[in-house]
């Protein structure tokens, strides 16, 4: 493997070069993610219906929806974990159907469950995934990356021995270890305490500032309002609205169902969400 350029403090610069086959086909302005006409069926049940959206470089795009709304199915189709019935998904211009390995090389993923071998140490997991993504990291560079997330002293600790927040930080750093155009975060702050959540938001915003396009799913309206540049509200497999959080509030504040959902007089994103998706508890 060739050496990947890493800065003195161990952070990965935006322009890295590494080994293996490579392509530089992305023109500036190509969306980090483009989804068009996406349909996903489980047998006769349609989980995702004609979903279309895009995520631009340097944008945090949030996907909100009740349980079973189609968020995970949409995300799984983008990740390549399920085959959509129809539609187009392009990651940094690469079709997930026709060029799946290139598309996957352009995305970093943080799954809901922190899914790494618990027997491996933190530094071993970093080396495993850097190898998989073709980024050659020396021990010093691994330590530098861990210093960035305040986990340097945990380098030789087994992953299974870390706290939930520490595991999330490792998971996030692995999602971006190859400097992807698109980062997918599936409910990244679930189970975190407020301090860890705030810290994670800062990290996500820092990723945006570096030019990554970020798609995150969340149940937290506070998170969506605080972090996301744009959000899509999805229910029953269909996108109900896409816009900035404030624009969504402004465009829907006069709807009777939104006013009915309002608890404190002031219309919030949660009121709009409840107004659009209903009050019934989903399974």
């Amino acid at each position, binding site marked *: *493997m060739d050496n990947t350029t890493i800065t003195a403090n161990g952070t990965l610069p935006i322009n890295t070069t590494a080994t293996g086959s490579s*392509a530089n086909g992305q023109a500036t302005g190509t969306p980090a993610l483009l989804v068009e006409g996406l349909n996903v069926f489980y047998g006769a049940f349609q989980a995702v219906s004609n979903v279309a959206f895009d995520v631009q*470089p340097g*944008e945090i795009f949030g996907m909100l929806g009740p349980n079973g709304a189609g968020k995970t199915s949409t995300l799984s189709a983008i990740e390549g974990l399920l085959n959509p019935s129809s539609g187009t998904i392009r990651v940094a211009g690469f079709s997930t159907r026709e060029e799946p390995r290139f598309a996957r090389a352009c995305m970093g993923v943080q799954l809901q469950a922190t899914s790494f071998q618990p027997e*491996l140490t933190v530094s071993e997991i970093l080396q495993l995934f850097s190898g*998989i993504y073709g980024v050659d990291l020396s021990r010093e560079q691994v330590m530098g990356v861990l210093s960035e997330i305040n986990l340097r002293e945990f380098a030789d600790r087994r992953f299974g021995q870390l706290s939930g927040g520490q595991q999330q930080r490792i998971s996030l750093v692995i999602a971006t270890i190859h400097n992807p155009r698109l980062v997918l975060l599936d409910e990244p702050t679930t189970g975190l305490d407020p301090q860890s959540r705030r810290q994670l938001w800062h990290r996500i915003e820092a990723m945006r500032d570096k030019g990554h396009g970020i798609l995150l799913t969340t149940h937290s309206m506070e998170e969506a309002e605080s972090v996301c540049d744009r959000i899509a509200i999805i229910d029953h497999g269909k996108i109900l609205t896409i816009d900035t959080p404030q624009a969504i509030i402004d465009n829907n504040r006069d709807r009777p169902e939104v006013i009915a959902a309002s608890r404190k007089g002031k219309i919030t994103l949660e009121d709009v969400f409840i107004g659009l998706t209903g009050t019934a508890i989903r399974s």
Partner: protein
Amino acid sequence: MSTTTTSIADNRTTTWPAAATPSINIPSPSSVFATLLRSDLRTQWRNRRASVMVVLLPLIILVSWKGLVDKLGGAFVLSNCITIGLTAIGLMGYSNSIARDRDKGIFQRLRVAPVPSWAVMASRITVQLIMIMILTTLVFIFGAQIDHIYLTATGYIFGFAMSIVGGAVYLGLGQVVVGRIMNPETVNATSRLIYIAFIMIGMFGELGMLGKEIGEMVKYSPYGTVKRIVSAGLTPGTWNTDTSISLAITLGYTILFTWLGIKWFRWSSR
């Protein structure tokens, strides 16, 4: 520096920070395989207590059957121990590790990376092949040191090769178990049940203690065919038509189990 881009979803124009245009790195499949194998070997090493348990029973049998070597023959004893070890590796070691990692989402995490699916499985199977080699070597060493069973060089080499061929049957069977059953605890219970059934029925059936019909069934079962080819491999001079038929049946079992195991296998248990 900034770039103006148009969001197609709502047809608005937004100004974003300059998009980075990094190279797209896809390491070669062999490089990915080497990385995965290194990681899987580390995991196996950290779980070495479980690995010791897998090879313990064959070695205990080898020691406790010392008095039977003259009566049954060295090749019979060694092949029995190797077959029991192969069953344990395929059914207990392989299927349980796959079921556990699938349940934890470890495979899903790998599959969202640019990793060919075959590399994930090939790495796991390579680890088990190494386990088969370790088991066979230990049985040969213990057989020589404790039971004074010595083979010809051809016998050791051929026996080694037949162990790997036989091990493939049980890895295939392990794949079937983990393909049909999603829950790791049920996989564990099922593989133990099959393991015990194979040992009890296979060993006693072959010794003729369960009657002629059971004995005939065992002869053509995965236990019987594998034991026969390993035994004949250890003493190549005894290889005959029956052994060739057993080898053909063994290969047939391997193909069948592997095909079913792959067909039924799901990467996620959810």
